């Protein structure tokens, strides 16, 4: 691949994978990083990006973003959501298998990858279904899914109720060294819950989801993990208890990792106070204690990644009584600002914050991506950490307008995103 020659200079390079945090230029040619620091002899840039005061880092890798295509194009499409991704600094998205049809055949996996490639914005890595049609009954063809490019297998938001099937699925995935992603939720304890079982649920009379719905599921998978030899990644944790359990498992040297959605690090159950369906998310926002524990989990490296848990919706999905609305936030474009907010308030250092968006998720997936060194694929994000902006429907790329952060002052904005050495997003400074 040819690709333009690009120099990015004047910015602070933060590349946690290689322990780099200093002002350094990078030089890109033929889709890869040609050099870091010193301009290669005879390098004539087609494009110079001067970015003093800005930060340049590997493009973000998202462990969970729903693209809605195929099957729910009325909500969003690969074109719209990969545009939103690069606007938010993401160059790679993992797409959970609950598309329609489900990603339980190589054809669906290949179709999603190919379409993303043809559109040429962010890359999409499909996550295959752990069981056929996500029904939790029969195993999917995991070997074929892996060959078709699936980076992991998961049952998405459809917990496997039958523990024998769960055990077999984990064993089978382990046979092909396929990562198992688990959004831990005990379906019986979840019941019809829609928000955290706590003070706000009691006041609003909304059915609650107890913390135990998550911890019981984590305990179950951890018990099976020793038996099955599977590599497990816990997706979108929401409570302090689960973080503790993962920390203990990591201490024991078990092959376990975990992530958290950026909005879980910022909000608590109290935001649901007036039945605002934009705050309807699963897992639910929990207590301040939980939120703080999740932040410490990221700061201490127990939670290797911050994901978007992006879920774009059409307007009607949120227009109903709270319990009848669809959960989820359209979040790709606000992850960076929310994460930088945690840096500003001293809950996270910048290096760790960027690691959680780059090297952390790459390590979870076992990919060499998420770093900037000579020879690595030039997936790069440049952002202005001080830029103040307000998200609204006019400067929004995702087709899903379901963000509770519209109208809020946000800090930190992506100015350039490069995928494979090509500039796929550029923000001029006017929002």
């Amino acid at each position, binding site marked *: 691949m040819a690709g333009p020659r690009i120099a990015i200079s004047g910015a602070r390079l933060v590349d946690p994978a290689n322990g780099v945090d200093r002002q350094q230029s990078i030089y890109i040619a033929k889709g890869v990083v040609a050099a870091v620091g010193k301009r290669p002899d005879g390098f004539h840039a087609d494009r110079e990006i001067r970015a003093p005061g800005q930060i340049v880092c590997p493009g973000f890798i998202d462990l969970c973003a729903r693209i809605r295509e195929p099957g729910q194009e009325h909500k969003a499409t690969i074109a719209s959501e990969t545009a939103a991704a690069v606007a938010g600094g993401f160059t790679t998205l993992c797409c959970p298998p609950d598309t329609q049809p489900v990603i339980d055949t190589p054809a669906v996996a290949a179709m999603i990858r190919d379409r993303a490639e043809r559109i040429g914005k962010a890359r999409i890595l499909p996550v295959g279904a752990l069981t056929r049609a996500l029904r939790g009954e029969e195993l999917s063809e995991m070997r074929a899914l892996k060959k078709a490019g699936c980076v992991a297998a998961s049952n998405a938001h459809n917990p496997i109720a039958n523990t024998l099937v769960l055990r077999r699925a984990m064993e089978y995935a382990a046979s092909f060294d396929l990562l198992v992603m688990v959004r831990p939720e005990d379906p019986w304890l979840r019941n019809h819950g829609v928000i955290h*079982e*706590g*003070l706000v*649920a*009691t*006041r*609003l*009379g*909304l*059915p*609650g989801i*107890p913390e135990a719905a998550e911890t019981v599921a984590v305990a179950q998978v951890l018990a099976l993990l020793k038996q099955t030899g599977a590599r497990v990644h816990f997706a979108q944790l929401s409570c302090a208890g689960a973080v503790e359990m993962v920390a203990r498992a990591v201490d024991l040297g078990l092959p376990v990792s975990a992530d958290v959605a950026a909005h879980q690090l910022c*909000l608590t159950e*109290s*935001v649901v*106070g*007036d*039945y*605002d*369906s*934009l705050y309807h998310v699963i897992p639910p926002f929990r207590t301040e204690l939980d939120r703080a524990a999740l932040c410490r989990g990221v700061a201490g490296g127990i939670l290797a990644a911050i994901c978007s848990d992006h879920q774009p919706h059409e307007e*009607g*999905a949120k*227009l*109903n*009584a*709270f*319990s*009848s609305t669809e959960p989820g936030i359209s979040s790709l474009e606000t992850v960076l600002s929310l994460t930088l907010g945690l840096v500003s308030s001293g809950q996270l250092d910048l290096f760790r914050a960027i690691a959680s968006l780059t090297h952390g998720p790459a390590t979870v997936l076992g990919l060499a991506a998420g770093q900037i060194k000579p020879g690595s694929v030039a997936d790069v994000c440049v952002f202005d950490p001080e830029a103040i902006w307000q998200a609204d429907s006019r400067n929004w790329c995702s087709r899903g307008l379901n963000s*509770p*952060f519209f109208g*809020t002052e946000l800090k930190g904005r992506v100015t350039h995103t490069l995928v494979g050495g090509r500039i796929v997003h550029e923000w001029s400074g006017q929002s």
Partner: protein
Amino acid sequence: MNQPAPDFQLDANGQLRHFLSIDGLDREMLIRIMDTAESFAGVVADQPVKKVPLLRGKTIVNLFFENSTRTRTTFELAAKRLSADVLNINIETSATAKGEGLLDTVRNIQAMHVDMFVVRHSESGAPYFIARHVEPHVSVINAGDGRHSHPTQAMLDMFTIRRYKRTFEDLQVAIVGDILHSRVARSQILALNTLGVGQIRVIGPRTLLPVDAESLGVRVFHKMDDGLKDVDVVMMLRLQKERMRGAMLPSEHEYFACFGLTRERLRFAKPDAIVMHPGPINRGVEIESRVADGDSSVILQQVGYGIAIRMAIMTMAMHSKPRGKKA
């Protein structure tokens, strides 16, 4: 980020615009509602012509997404006594399409130039959603939403207590039964706390109590005899038959043995204690007939006061706000 707006149901002058929850209303407002109801109670009981022309020309729609006979009837009667035109619309939730169904229903009926919706819905918060989407001149009254709120029931209960006990200070009140699923209990607790009663107790098994029940401002009891000791008011709750399935309770028999209100148990309360129930009663499940029909019972009086309270709330909500000129 949106902050919860406690004054959502009030207009700029602090007057009732909607009536959705006791939450956010102050003591003065609750007393004003009861005082207004007091003036209607006379009309209802004593006048040969039980009508006043306060809401003549107004159209009130009872929009019931959940079955109810008595609540709907008392709302209907209250509206008719205020000379309003009343339309009853029953929509089984199962029959309406999901998604935009609810909003479409409301917009369609609103287009017929109505002035007030009285809404009952099986989902908590549904009347808030409707109130947020109606035109400025339309008021929404919550006639019960999910587990959340049943504020007109709570107000008629407060009205009943005031009639029998005169004052709220120093009263000991026990609420017995399924607190977890009860919108009535939630609203009663809010109202009793706002009116400054001495103590509120809730009595029930753990499976029927919300988590952090104490956060509502109550003391929790699991034994009837302890909880009823020296109370002035016993407020029983209806036990939904479906709670008997789904591992909430083992049997009606055991429930009655533990939490049924019998004459023997009532002796633990003060001698002049009153017994209340929002109805309909499950005789022999939560209360025995001798108590329900006994001297302490004010259950039928509650029903009568319900009309006066609903007349008061409808009038206040219709007269407070500046009416946008709608053709």
